[in-house]
């Protein structure tokens, strides 16, 4: 579940970014915003470039951080799958990847948030990637 790794900006030729998840309120629990700021050195690089991760399917994902006047940065986040430019998404694979990315986030945010709690929640709500 934590097979998600931070990578450098992947080769963009022949690909497109496909929006798969949005978060308008990353700081709802401030420790989530702090995790991304720490992981991607956002206090230094700010909006200059997205963060990139590779998920278990092998797909790369761009994490585009959003700033909002009057709020700590980043205030929001958009996650884009980087896919073949003209091919449709494999939605089931993306869903599993997103679940893995969430595990990576929760693990990185740390206590009291735990991957076990996330997995239990996924099982309770019968999320395919969690069962």
């Amino acid at each position: 579940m934590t097979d998600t790794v931070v990578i450098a900006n992947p080769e963009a030729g022949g690909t497109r970014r496909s929006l798969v998840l949005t978060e308008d309120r990353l700081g709802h629990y401030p420790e989530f915003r702090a995790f991304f700021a720490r992981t991607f050195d956002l206090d230094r690089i700010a909006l200059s470039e997205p963060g990139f991760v590779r998920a278990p399917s092998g797909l790369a994902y761009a994490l585009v951080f959003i700033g909002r006047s009057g709020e700590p940065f980043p205030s929001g986040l958009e996650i884009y799958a980087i896919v073949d430019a003209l091919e449709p998404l494999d939605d089931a694979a993306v869903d599993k990847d997103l679940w893995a990315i969430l595990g990576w986030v929760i693990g990185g945010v740390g206590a009291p948030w735990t991957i076990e709690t996330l997995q239990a929640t996924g099982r309770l709500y019968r999320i395919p990637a969690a069962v």
Partner: protein
Amino acid sequence: MTANSLANIEGFQDKWRFASRDMRVNGWRMHYVDEGAGDPVLLLHGNPTWGFLYRDVIPPLLEAGRRVVVPDMIGFGLSEKPAREQAHSLDGHIANLTGLVRQLDLRRLTVVCHDWGGPTGLSFAMSNPERVRALVVMSTWAWPTPPAEFHTRLFPWRIMHAPLVGPYLLGRHNVLARRGVYLSVVDRDKFRREAQAAYDAVLPDYETRLLTWTWPRWIPLDDTARAQARFAWLEAELAKTRLPTLIIWGREDEVFDAATFAARFKQLLPHAEGPHLVTGRHFLQEDSGHEIGRLISAFLARLDQQGGT
């Protein structure tokens, strides 16, 4: 598209025979039903339901000679669904409701509240008391401390709507309308057979489900919460009101349990009738809709006899 999806659900039109109406309120398109004549009764739902929740409550009220108005909260049901989280606020939803009531010029109004219909409907009532005749509260809250111990727990509540997790679970997988409501009724087989599809159909896509993870983020968990001041005001206003009030609660409600929540409303509104306990968990209208309709009708009939204003 959504209306077509509903029409295709087997038996839906037998359960929901009410004419659809729309009105522009506070900048948004609000869907509502408006049936019958007489003193109006406003039935307010919460997260993640819509007016359909009240399908069995409505007929006894109509038979008792009441006018029944059932809006879908902006962001739910057949109302407009804003695409950005920042479009939603507790005060904004109170203003939405106020806009509807004023445009319909409803007076001598009975405000019936469930879940987020409580903070919105009761705040409307406290800021427009000249229009309100009575209150009915069911499985809701009206004070700034966390509504229930459940809401302070990481599992399953806080992690369910945590950053990114909320949009994934509630947006991509619609878990609140699908599994959440199912787990919060008593007769789950009946719910799955008769109602589940009608709740799914109005939240068909990721963007349409935004409010399902936005409302949980508005529940005050500490004194830094966005809605802290509004809830504090609401509690103080309710403590002063003398509006006739009826408390109805689900006997099996484990989240907003009657021993804590109905009792707190009774403490806040000592003149209130009840609590009347009926079969039901949080979504008690699913299990006891007719009985709730009859309880409200009888309560209003008693007010009529007493010459209540």
